[in-house]
């Protein structure tokens, strides 16, 4: 086990070279609905059961089912109203279980990225072949269902192995949403490929804000507006990224969806300064224009450390 993953180098948030998003925009904003399938009776991973309560957890299961039957459609209509495309964090088995959702999103040119097969199957204990099988299944399933190649990855239920990042880079993924160390992207140190960490703003993820943080709907909207305002201000110096990671089974609840709309109204009122886009479009632009600039800045500050993620080069001091 490693003390430090060595997936990225320390990069202080001060005097960084400027990032400018297309048309001189200051903040790249993307919205990531997690479209998930939690199995009714999943197998037990030794590190963590599929459900925290004994199965069947009928309340937990049916609330998530409600998210796909009712909640998703509420949220999608809201994003239509504000002319936003979602970047879907997808449990790819949804392509089999609920293809109507996939078709509706594909018609809207939303982006799909992989959030594993099911949210009840974790990466803990995977050997390399198993992890490759999940990645290949993800790529192939989404390609069959949508004709599109996925470029992003958010490990199912945020569970990883030491190989995850090398593997997704090798499979030509462009971005990972699993690393929360920054409000700007940064190249990830993998053995091959060209992978960046994409700010996924976990602290304003509705699972965190409605769950652990126990926010009211109105407080959540206020937090989103303030988060946005601060990152937009800082984006004048160098472009920032904000994501709103969502789950329809939470945010589309009847007491929450209208307060949430206030946040979208606030954000879209700043369209002149904000690039409202998808994860893959941010990654594509960043890799093309800012990959080298960032690495040059880090090494110019003397902060580049040797090695790649989990390669043994950065064990406990």
């Amino acid at each position, binding site marked *: 086990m490693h003390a430090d*993953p060595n997936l990225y180098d320390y990069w202080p948030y001060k005097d960084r070279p400027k990032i400018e998003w297309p048309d001189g925009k200051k903040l790249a904003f993307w919205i990531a609905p997690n479209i998930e399938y939690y199995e009714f009776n999943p197998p037990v991973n030794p590190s963590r059961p599929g459900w925290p309560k004994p199965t069947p957890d009928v309340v937990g299961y049916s609330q998530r089912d409600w998210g796909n039957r009712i909640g998703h459609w509420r949220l999608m209509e809201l994003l239509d109203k504000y002319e936003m495309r979602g970047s879907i964090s997808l449990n790819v088995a949804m392509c089999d279980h609920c293809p109507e959702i996939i078709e509706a999103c594909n018609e809207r040119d939303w982006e799909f990225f992989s959030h594993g097969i099911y949210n009840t199957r974790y990466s803990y204990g995977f050997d390399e072949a198993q992890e490759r099988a999940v990645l290949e299944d993800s790529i192939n399933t989404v390609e069959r269902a949508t004709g599109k190649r996925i470029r992003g990855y958010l490990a199912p239920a945020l569970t990883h192995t030491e190989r995850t990042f090398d593997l997704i880079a090798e499979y030509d993924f462009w971005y990972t949403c699993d690393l929360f160390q920054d409000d700007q992207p940064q190249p990830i140190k993998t053995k091959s490929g060209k992978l960046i960490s994409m700010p996924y703003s*976990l602290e304003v993820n509705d699972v965190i804000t409605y769950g652990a943080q126990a926010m009211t709907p109105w407080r959540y909207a206020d937090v989103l507006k303030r988060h946005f305002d601060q990152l937009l201000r800082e984006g004048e110096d160098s472009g920032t990224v*904000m994501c709103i990671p969502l789950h329809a089974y939470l945010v589309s609840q009847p007491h929450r969806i209208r307060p949430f709309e206030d946040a979208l109204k606030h954000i879209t009122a700043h369209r002149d300064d904000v690039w409202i886009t998808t994860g893959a479009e941010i990654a594509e632009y960043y890799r093309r224009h800012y990959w080298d600039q960032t690495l040059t800045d880090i090494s110019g500050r003397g902060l580049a450390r040797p090695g790649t993620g989990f390669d043994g080069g950065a064990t406990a001091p």
Partner: protein
Amino acid sequence: MSLPPDYLDYPNRKHGQDHDRYQWRIVGDRKKKSFSGGAALGVAVVVPLEYFMLNPSGTPFKHPGAMATPYPDLRHYTTRDYGNRVGAYRLLRAFEKAGAKATFAVNAVLLDRVRPLIDAIVGDGHEIAAHGYDTDSIHWGGVEAETEQRYVEKTRLAFEAAGLAPRTWMSPARQQSFNTPDLIADAGFDICLDWELDTVPVKMKTKSGTISAFPLLNELDDRFLLSTKNHDEASWRDQILEAADMTASEATRHGGQLFGFTMTPYLAGLPFRIWAVEEILSGLANRDDILVDTVSNLNDGLS
């Protein structure tokens, strides 16, 4: 089944403390102290810079904020790292805007890892304090004496190697053993942020002279309020400003007093919280009767 008979023996049952680090003294018997400029209150902002490794032993307990899910818990590793990469710089900008000097309590292991941040802190005139070696080097009643001795020595050596000579000590998780005051005093620390027994610094006896207990308020700890208890930012701000206003109002009766509170970079430094940080700092800095300064300046300035 009953407890042994000596369970009801009370060998230290007497007037005052049941230890000899300091003397019992009620606030009414305290000689009034004052700041040279006549301020009613000194307030220290303490910023913990902590290193949360992916593989903590968790002995004897997990440091607050440590990894929570099975290895590799990159979620908690990176959200904590955010504080040292991004959040701390937001706090520095807020301190600069308010003209406030703060005390950054640093895990020794971070000195090399985040050297640009250390340089920025020192460059802006803030105080660097030692916050032990790392979040997995906990000082506690069950730690071997030699192990604890080594924690303190390693910490002092790392600061020396970084060209820093901190006077102020805060233990990881503010946990101590019965020997900690002796060990840190012996290593040259003369102010400690772990004991919060009074509203003025209190000299504590150690085997190597005295050490000053500077009160850092656990009940205003931002990790406790914002994370454990889910208070919102407006309430956090109000509680700190209320504490300052209330304590300042006692100055005619009790003289100058002081306290510290924490701003933890991975929490207070989040984009949606910076407005509250700025309002706390301006709310304190805009008052003529309140000094916002480093722990060591306030400690030395109240006499």
